[in-house]
């Protein structure tokens, strides 16, 4: 394949994926809003574009799938078919198939998917729907001209919303979202109205060029028309941005070195006028560099919508598989986060949503009995708080049953009776994050296998973030994920042990202490320290890192510095020789080093050009205490 062709194909893949990402939530919106011409047109057009481009490039399977679902879309758009869940299901299936085909294309694995069953399914779904709707009053083909003064409005029983309007050459369909097709019996109401009035009644008239609307007045432009994406956007290869990012990181390092050097000159030659000039220049460079770094980081920021947009569909599928009616509301989807966060946040969010829908929300009957509306609510709220991004997932379900959690944890042997008794309600909510924990007696399709929530915790801590759970009985549960805006730079505490420096990520550090060596006790071979009446295990950093610790302390001060790490409700201390201070460090990846066994998650380069390792405290706690062990 020539380079040019490859480029065209990769562009096609990107565009097609974007189109699919964009239209998928529209289906769910469509189901909720009822038949909305603009939405239908939008979806239809995107599907058509994909089909066209795929045809041009010779991807026949994609064309077949797109064509078959487009057929249905066309009928829906032209109002020849009412919206039905079965149709939605097959169209969504075809979108999944298109995605799969694109994935194969992208990875160039040459795997051919057999699309014929799906195409057949799409065809038969269309035929079924067509045969059902034949004879139904609302699907009058607009072949025969009707007297313009005698308009026929077909309204649906549910709330009397306009379901279809037959004007000469035009059929509108607006259906209330209704999961059960058998309820879609419609009642025909005949009204005589002036044509202008009708045009007003139809809340969202389609753009005139898309159909042959013959109403005397030109339909006004839809107010809901999507604003045209600004043409000021530039599509740039991510590698180029990463390169700029790397270079910016290097400039930061050089700046740090320059700062060191200029401080040295300032001390030594403070009477030389050039020193002052140097200091000024360097401090200007310092400011510009910080700004540049921020600007470059912003390039990588993307709205979290990229992840959240798949959830309406996901919730729709999940809720129908457990027979619950769930409404998902998303706030703050424009909040921008680093690309790396976008890539890693999807799975944890999916697990939490699944948990909320399956465990959190009650069935409709239960909800009614409790005096709640039958429809369950799940809200995703995203906002920025300082340098952190906060994602809250709340449901208005039954809340966590603390006693049940404790009982289950003991039954499964995850905790002892003793431990459970000592737990506060707050820490007990952490039980759900324990590996192997599940309250469901039977594993359902959705959940109950005891994997999932621990994955949430692990993934979030990989992002240097943390999870909080708050719950209230019968009022609901809220999961709060706090993640730093970017993964490229972290706040770290610099420490020194046996003459070498290490960086410890700041987020899991609870406090630092200076203790006298006599306070360190040894219980059955394990060093411990008592902090405010609580016993906390203590580990020597140079032992953890195997840096040639000889068992004797070189530091004779009689004091030790402790870094207290909190992982969930477990705490441990790391003893170091010196605390140097807090620093913002740029994380450099470590290619070629087995980071899993070395207790480091990356490295950074300090102002003097030395490499300093960033410690992986999450990994350490897993090794030391078995927290979050799989």
């Amino acid at each position, binding site marked *: 394949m020539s380079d040019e062709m490859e480029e065209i194909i990769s562009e096609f893949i990107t565009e097609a994926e974007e189109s699919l990402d964009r239209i998928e939530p529209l289906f769910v919106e469509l189901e909720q809003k009822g038949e909305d011409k603009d939405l239908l047109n939008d979806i239809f057009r995107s599907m058509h574009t994909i089909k066209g481009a795929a045809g041009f490039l010779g991807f026949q399977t994609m064309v077949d799938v797109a064509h078959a679902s487009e057929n249905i879309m066309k009928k829906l758009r032209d109002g020849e078919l009412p919206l039905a869940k079965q149709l939605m299901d097959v169209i969504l299936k075809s979108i999944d198939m298109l995605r799969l085909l694109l994935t194969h294309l992208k990875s160039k694995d040459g795997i051919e998917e057999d699309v014929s069953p799906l195409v057949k399914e799409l065809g038969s779904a269309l035929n079924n729907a067509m045969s059902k709707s034949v004879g139904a009053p609302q699907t009058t083909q607009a072949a025969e001209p009707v007297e313009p003064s005698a308009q026929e409005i077909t309204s649906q029983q549910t709330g009397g919303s306009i379901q279809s309007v037959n004007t000469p050459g035009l059929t509108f369909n607006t259906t209330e979202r209704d999961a059960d097709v058998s309820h879609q019996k419609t009642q025909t109401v005949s009204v005589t109205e002036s044509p202008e009035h009708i045009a007003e009644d139809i809340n969202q008239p389609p753009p005139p060029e898309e159909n042959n609307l013959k109403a005397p007045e030109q339909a006004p432009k839809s107010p809901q028309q999507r604003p045209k994406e600004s043409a000021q956007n530039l599509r740039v290869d991510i590698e180029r941005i990463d390169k700029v990012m790397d270079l910016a990181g290097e400039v930061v390092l050089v700046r740090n070195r320059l700062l060191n050097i200029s401080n040295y000159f300032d001390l030594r030659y403070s009477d030389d006028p050039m020193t002052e000039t140097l200091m000024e220049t360097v401090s200007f460079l310092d400011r510009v560099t910080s700004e540049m770094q921020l600007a470059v980081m912003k390039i990588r920021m993307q709205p979290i919508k990229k992840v959240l947009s798949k959830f309406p569909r996901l919730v729709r599928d999940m809720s129908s598989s457990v027979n619950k009616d769930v409404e998902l509301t998303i706030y703050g989807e424009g909040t921008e986060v680093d690309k790396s966060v976008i890539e890693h946040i999807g799975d944890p969010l999916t697990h939490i949503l699944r948990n909320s829908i399956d465990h959190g929300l009650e069935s409709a009957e239960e909800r009614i009995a409790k005096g709640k509306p039958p429809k369950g609510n799940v809200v995703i709220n995203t906002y920025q708080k300082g340098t952190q991004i906060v994602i809250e997932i709340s449901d208005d379900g039954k809340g966590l049953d603390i006693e049940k959690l404790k009982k289950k944890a003991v039954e499964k042997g995850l905790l002892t009776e003793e431990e459970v008794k000592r737990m506060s309600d707050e820490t007990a909510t952490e039980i759900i994050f324990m590996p192997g924990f599940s309250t469901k007696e039977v594993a359902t399709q959705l959940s109950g296998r005891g994997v999932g929530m621990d994955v949430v915790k692990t993934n979030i801590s990989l992002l240097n973030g943390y999870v909080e759970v708050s719950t209230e009985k019968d009022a609901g549960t809220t999961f709060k994920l706090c993640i730093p805006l970017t993964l490229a730079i972290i706040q770290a505490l610099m420490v020194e042990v046996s003459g070498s420096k290490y960086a410890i990520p700041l987020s899991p550090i609870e406090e630092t202490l200076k203790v006298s060596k006599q306070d360190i006790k040894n219980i059955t071979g394990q060093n411990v320290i008592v902090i405010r009446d609580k016993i906390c295990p203590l580990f020597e950093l140079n032992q953890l890192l195997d840096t040639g610790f000889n068992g004797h302390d070189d530091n004779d001060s009689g004091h030790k510095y402790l870094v207290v790490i909190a992982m969930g409700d477990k705490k441990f201390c790391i003893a170091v020789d010196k605390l140097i201070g807090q620093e913002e460090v740029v994380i450099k990846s*470590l290619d070629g080093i*087995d980071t899993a066994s070395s207790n480091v998650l990356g490295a950074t380069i300090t102002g003097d050009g030395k490499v*300093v390792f960033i410690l992986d405290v999450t990994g350490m706690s897993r090794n030391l205490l078995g927290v979050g062990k799989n």
Partner: protein
Amino acid sequence: MKATMEDSAVGEEVLQFVTFTLNKEQYAVDILNVQEINRVTDITRVPNSPAYVEGVINLRGKVIPVINLRKKFSFDENPTNETSRIIIMEINGITNGLIVDSVSEVLRVPSSIIEPAPPMSSDLGSTYIKGIAKMEDRLIILIDIDKLISGTVQL
């Protein structure tokens, strides 16, 4: 040994190698793998790593692992000195450094004088030997750098 067979099949092809000394022996690596040769700078030790991983260095803002070939081949340890060098190589997209006693020269070797490695006791690291170049006055051990690196670091 596949590479060697291919090389000899081409006939009088001339290969270029960077030669270096290690424990007074002459070794060589394919010049195409070599990115640059540096003096030994500050090396930061990697926690909990095998002994032959000397540590990591800062190569113009990139953190790259450095392997001590002496330790890898179980030779006597020798502190690095003035002649010690780090050969920076890129293998499978990952940049690594190798610490050697000294770097000698770039050598052009006709493929016809390269012989497959004789069977040796395996603990001598013979798995990493691609072949032996029989020069007029000496033997040069050609290192299979792909195998050495992939058997050493995590790819």
